[in-house]
């Protein structure tokens, strides 16, 4: 996986097992000014974070994915290991129950529109970390 985007842009990790949705989310976040990393399951996402957690400011993840663990597990683990990463969880099939989401994480329902994604990302991340395009 190549590292895209300008060197000064904040990094976002998008996790979704559906390629089309992954592409869509990636496009939305890139438009918002993020440099986007992609993963299609929890294991891939953990590997990406292990390597790049210093640069990653946002985790944008689906819930249900093939393989061990789901998006909630990923969110809780991320919050525990790398508390500086803002977390947005999206699902069309499940709703979070008490204890599913770590503190500070935001849930959005699929399908989502670019403006919904931008709105929630903006609210979830501290404003000083917002990329230039999101500040607009």
């Amino acid at each position, binding site marked *: 996986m190549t590292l895209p985007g300008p060197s000064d842009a904040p990094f976002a990790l998008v996790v979704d*097992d*559906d*390629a*089309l*949705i*992954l*592409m*869509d989310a990636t*496009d939305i976040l890139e438009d918002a000014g993020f440099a986007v990393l992609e993963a*299609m399951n929890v294991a891939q996402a953990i590997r990406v974070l292990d390597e790049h957690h210093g640069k990653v400011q946002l985790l944008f993840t689906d819930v*249900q994915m*093939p393989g061990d663990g*789901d998006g909630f597990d990923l969110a809780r683990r991320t919050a525990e290991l790398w508390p500086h990463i803002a977390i947005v969880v999206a699902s*069309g*099939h*499940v709703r979070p129950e008490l204890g599913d989401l770590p503190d500070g994480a935001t849930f959005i329902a*699929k*399908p989502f529109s*670019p403006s919904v994604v931008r709105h929630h990302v903006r609210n979830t991340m501290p404003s000083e970390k917002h990329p230039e395009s999101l500040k607009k």
Partner: protein
Amino acid sequence: MAGGNKQVDGLRRRELASYDILDTPAETEFDDIVRVASETCGMPVSLISLLDGERQWFKAETGFGRNETPLSQSICAYTVQQDDVFEIEDLTLDARTSDNPLVTGGPEVRFYAGAPLRTADGVALGALCVLDTKPNKLTPSQAFVLRTLAHQVMTTLELRRSLRQRRETDRRNTAILESALDYAIVSLDLAGMVTSWSPGAERILGWDEAEMRGKPAHVFFTDEDVANAVPEQEMASALLSGRGADERWHVRKDGSRFWANGEMMPLRDEQGQHEGFLKILRDRTEQRNAAAKEQADAAFMRGVLSSSADCIKVLDPDARLTFMNEGGLAVMEADDFNQVKGCDWTGFWKGQAQMDAKAAFWAALAGGTGHFQAPAETLKGTAKWWDVQVTPIRGADGRPERLLVVSRDVTAQRASEQRIVESEKRWRGLFEGMQEGFFSGEIIRNANGKATDYRFVEINPAFAAQSGLPVETVGRTVREAIPDIPDWLIETYARVVDTGTPEVFEISVPQLGRVFEVRAYREAENRFAAMFIDVSDRKQAETRRAALAELGDRLRNSDDAGEIACVAAEILGRTLGLSHAGYGAVDHDRETIAVGDGWTAPGIPGIGGVHSFRDYGSYIENLKSGHAVIIDDVANDVRTANDAEALAAIHVRSLLNLPLMEHGRFVALLFALKAKPYAWTGEEISFANNIADRTRAALARIEAEERQRTLNLELSHRMKNMLAMVQSIATQTMRTATDLNAAKDVLAGRLIALSKSHDLLLGGEIGSAPIETLIESALQTHRDNPGRFVLKGPTFTIGSKAAMSLSLMLHELATNAAKYGALSTAQGKVSVEWTLREDGGEPHCALRWLEQGGPVVKAPTRSGFGSRLIGRGLAGNFGGEVDLSYPATGVMCTIDAPLRGLQAEDAPATSR
């Protein structure tokens, strides 16, 4: 009382005094007369009443018991005023007698008839009368007899008086008179004229000597004899033979006839010359009457005997018949007595009856009485039953000299007795043989009158069998027989006895597994009867019906397969009284059954766990072919006999197994087990089948519901994915669009491709489609001639997730080819080939898209959505690697993916 005048009374008293009769002792002559009068008239009382001033005195009486009454009570006082027989038919209705004390009280006399006792001078002295205690009427002949007897009374009175007078007036002749008083001695001359007339003649004949001397003797002969010249014949006969004797009727002066024994002798003088005749007469009327009476009595007796329906016989001491009455001849069907006269009476009897007859005969001959009942035939062979009594007829010395046998025909009576016996026997047979149990009992109470027990008075065999109590229990109490008998039962019977109201209730005998309907009713004081009708079958049918209804309710409300199996097992086990019941899943190939909780009778260990059918016999073969297995006793069935011990170890002695088949495979089993040998009834088997069917139906319903739920979830999931995909495609299409109209077409094409793949998926098995069909479908819009596409590769199915991505990828490739590549020229072709291979221990599929015959290819300067989609997006959905290259001869795209990814189902997560 009758009015009379003093003159008449005085006359009567004088006359009576002349007879010197009052207050004299009873005399046979008079006593006989009243007895004859009484018997002739058939009335209990007869009197000779003489009126004596203020009293009437009875010279003779029969049936009255007194010898005088006051005149005020005399009815004869009226008779003396009459000329002839006087009668009052009902004394209570006659003013003269209705208040007579003899009528109002005492003997309660109701009828009176009297004939006056009148002297030759016409003075009435009294009356001969008969009395009855009921209203009556004399027949003419009875009246005649009464009148004649009254005359006889007077004649006798006269006789007494004349006797007395004679004694007084002719002392000289006393000796003669006394000796010859009974003889009339008359002498006649040769011409038959009377020459002397003795006092006896005067007494007997009525005429005195003065009247008769010189008169012919004809006067005391009857007119008929005179006409026949009897007197002359007598005289002639006396002359001829020296004497003549005869007995014939003679006539008295008063005209009355009397029977006389007469003797006529010739009288001769000293020279022996015949000078006349001597006629001596003796009145023999009494003797003759006595003989006549005897004859009459005998006739009466014969009449009595002949009118009797009994067979009355007289036997001599040799048992020979000397007499049989007419009734007897009739009942013996004899034509006349000669037919049986002299026969041995015991010969009429046969066998034991003859022994009885002989015994009775000897008993009577010994002075006792013989009695027996026995059959014998009549002379015409009719079979009859007789009641026979033999008694002795004693002779003058008091010793039995003949025997009286009275036989009564009791055939009809005996037949009715026989019918009663047979009826009793029939009812007894019914009682003994009926299916219903029956007993009668007697309530036993304590000092307070409370019922505490009952005693068996009678029980029939059916009751004995039902209750397990022996027939000998009769006489014992129920508490003696069954110490733990429930109180309510005794109270119920006591209530039936107390109220007299029958009651019907049910009682179950668990030891026998039977239920009885009891109908109890009062039989008598403190007695009741109870009939036991076995209603077990009906009750069981009711129980099974209720069980099925309960099963229906409980299964309807359950969505859990395990619970359904438990409920079915419990109801089956409880209803049929099993040791175990259950519904278990079966592994057809391994021949095992997984027995879940099931149902187990209390006190028996459960049999949960996996069991191998082969451990318990060979009947698995029947089950696998779908046949029910019903074994009444595993020890006696060839399929299980060898493994009976293994079955005994799990408390199984009889079993009922109903297999559930699916596609010819044995998949589940409903089993019913008993710890004892048991003959399964058709009803029970059908009940178990019913349970099995309902259980299967309930499980099938749950399965269908489960499948429906899964399908709904799947559809919802796929719909969301689809919409997400549509959204992504639309967003991407619009983002990169340079021209709105072109974007519309592109978007429409992509959505159509998506839609087609979806159609395919719905057409196949849930969420899968054959790869070839999928590819053809995706490329169909571009197939403007048959040679455009060449598809080649092995057949396998593509899962729903990969199918949509693959369809979309092929759509993008084809769209690009139509715009810039092989499909943009008439000669261009596209080959799609795929192969399968092993890679890293896992099957992979390599699919290659190769365009040929199109314009020279130039690699695109920027990556459009289509190539992005192909290049990085879609293949990731099934874990594939994509390589898209642009050789000048034609675009080539290879997709390499694990088969697992291509076939994965886009299933909704079930973990959440």
